[in-house]
């Protein structure tokens, strides 16, 4: 089975910052907006190089979403930056009416998603954002897994016409995906196209965001017990790469979904819908169980809420027994 290693850890939000800076140099229509969280979103480089294309909105997220919608009228491609909690639930109606229903080409870039935000606690740790965003007609929903994938996704969404929700996080995590190279156009991020990370016969693990690395660790642990897992990195929750998932499930006959999100409304439910319509097989859900988060270190929280390799291993064994 293919093994993944890393030499460096970085936060996915820094991947966003690097991708945004790249866009600042390559796409004159890209503009950025922030609601008083420049440092947290790693937008400094873009701002330094393109001060005239940056809009500091202040602590007023609703206004930010409306201004972003307005900037598209005139051909701009606005990237908004704030925490995931304030990028979604706080401004749901603004996104719904002024952006999505109005067909506006706004990129909603959301950092500090999920439990790994850590010590700030549940007010800031949104675990419902994927559900909120995927329910909006026409919204593309992406959750990236490492620095490289976040950088590549940031660059890719500028070329996509239509509203996008790009979700990433705060903690440093292993870099295991290949780096996007502009000159060769290699390792380009393709919206809606899942990535098969490993080949296996016994179980399919469909993971997104920070849980992709955990899924890879789980597959290695399972292999030691003679279980081979097919890990799919499903960075795009909507539109979902149903073809890749169904192809894998036709072989393995069962699936575990893994996400840093409530099991209600998240990736797991999207996969379950796909299975129900096409090929019902047993599924286990790794995610938070309809609960808010709490304060703690990211590692403590991921362990307490069963969002790690050990949880994926246990879910895999359980789902295989159900086949």
């Amino acid at each position: 089975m293919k093994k993944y290693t890393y030499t460096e850890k970085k936060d996915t939000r820094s991947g966003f910052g690097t991708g945004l800076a790249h866009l600042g140099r390559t796409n004159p229509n890209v503009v950025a907006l922030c609601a008083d969280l420049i440092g947290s979103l790693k937008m400094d480089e873009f701002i330094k190089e393109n001060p005239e294309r940056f809009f500091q909105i202040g602590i007023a997220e609703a206004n930010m979403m409306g201004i972003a919608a307005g900037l598209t009228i005139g051909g701009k491609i606005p990237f908004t930056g704030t925490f995931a909690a304030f990028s979604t639930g706080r401004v749901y109606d603004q996104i719904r009416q002024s952006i999505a229903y109005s067909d506006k080409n706004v990129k909603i870039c959301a950092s500090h998603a999920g439990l790994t935000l850590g010590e700030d606690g549940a007010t800031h740790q949104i675990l419902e954002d994927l559900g909120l965003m995927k329910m909006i007609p026409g919204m593309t929903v992406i959750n990236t897994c490492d620095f490289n994938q976040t950088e590549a996704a940031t660059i890719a969404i500028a070329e996509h016409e239509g509203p996008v929700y790009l979700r990433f996080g705060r903690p440093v995590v292993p870099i295991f995906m290949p780096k996007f190279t502009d000159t060769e156009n290699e390792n380009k991020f393709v919206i809606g196209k899942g990535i098969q990370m490993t080949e296996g016969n016994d179980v399919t693990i469909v993971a997104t965001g920070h849980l992709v690395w955990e899924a890879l660790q789980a597959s290695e642990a399972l292999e030691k017990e003679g279980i081979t897992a097919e890990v799919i990195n499903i960075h795009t929750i909507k539109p979902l790469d149903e073809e890749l998932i169904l192809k894998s499930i036709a072989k393995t006959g069962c699936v575990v979904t893994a996400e840093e999100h409530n099991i209600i409304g998240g990736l797991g439910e999207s996969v379950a819908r796909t299975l129900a319509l096409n090929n019902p097989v047993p599924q286990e859900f790794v995610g938070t169980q309809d609960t808010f988060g709490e304060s703690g270190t990211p590692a403590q929280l991921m362990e307490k809420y069963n969002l790690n390799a050990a949880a994926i291993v246990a879910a895999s064994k359980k789902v295989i027994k159900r086949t």
Partner: protein
Amino acid sequence: MASIQELKDFTQQVRRDILRMVHAVNSGHPGGSLGCAEYITVLYQEIMKHNAEEFDMDGKDQDLFFLSNGHISPVFYSVLSRSGYFPVSELATFRLLDSRLQGHPTTHEGLEGIRIASGSLGQGMSVALGAAQAKKLNGDTRLVYSLHGDGELQEGQNWEAIMYAAAKKVDNYIAAVDVNLKQIDGTTDEVLPMGSIKAKFEAFGWEVLEVKEGNDIEAIIAGVKKAQSLTGNGKPVCILLYTEMGNGVDFMMHTHAWHGKAPNDEQLENALSQNPATLGDY
């Protein structure tokens, strides 16, 4: 350049359109629509540089208008169609299934002249500000206009936008507030007294001017021209437009009852008799 009489005739036909549209589907918002007929007519027929024949979303080198209080869609649709954005005959599809003239304005059906969906209140000023800032980035010297209800100012997002506009010196922008002192549940003072809107805008750093006769064509033209002269000076500009809800139909005036209620057959006949056709009905 239209004559005052031509603008009055245009407005009278717009009033007929509004009444007939809401009557036909027994729904919609005639009161605020009638109150703003003169203002929107003046913008599209006299003030704004705009291209109705070849509508494009970006509107470069054109003046832009955003309707924030989207429930007065009848007046917006009537003025847009009679300005050449889409066939006047399409007014007959207002609020019907498969129509581009949805209950509240939307870009979703590809209706020429609409640049943003509105209806959920309080969002239009933020959008207008973004469009105004895009114009500045593009070196486009045309202006952005918007219209808001006075009751709508109870939505907090407005005050985020009002603060931002002055702080960022968005001075290529003229916002108008339709001060008719009424909302669904009663007068604004009964529902939620707002104090002095003028003092609030001024305190936030805006240029504020008042058009006391908000249903008088000449007063509106003078007011908007004065507002234009105040642009480009580092401050956003606000027009407080004092209008009469239900203007032009005697039994719809001086009450909030016709905010969101359509006339019956008899009432329509009465209302139309007060506003004879000038340009031909759709």
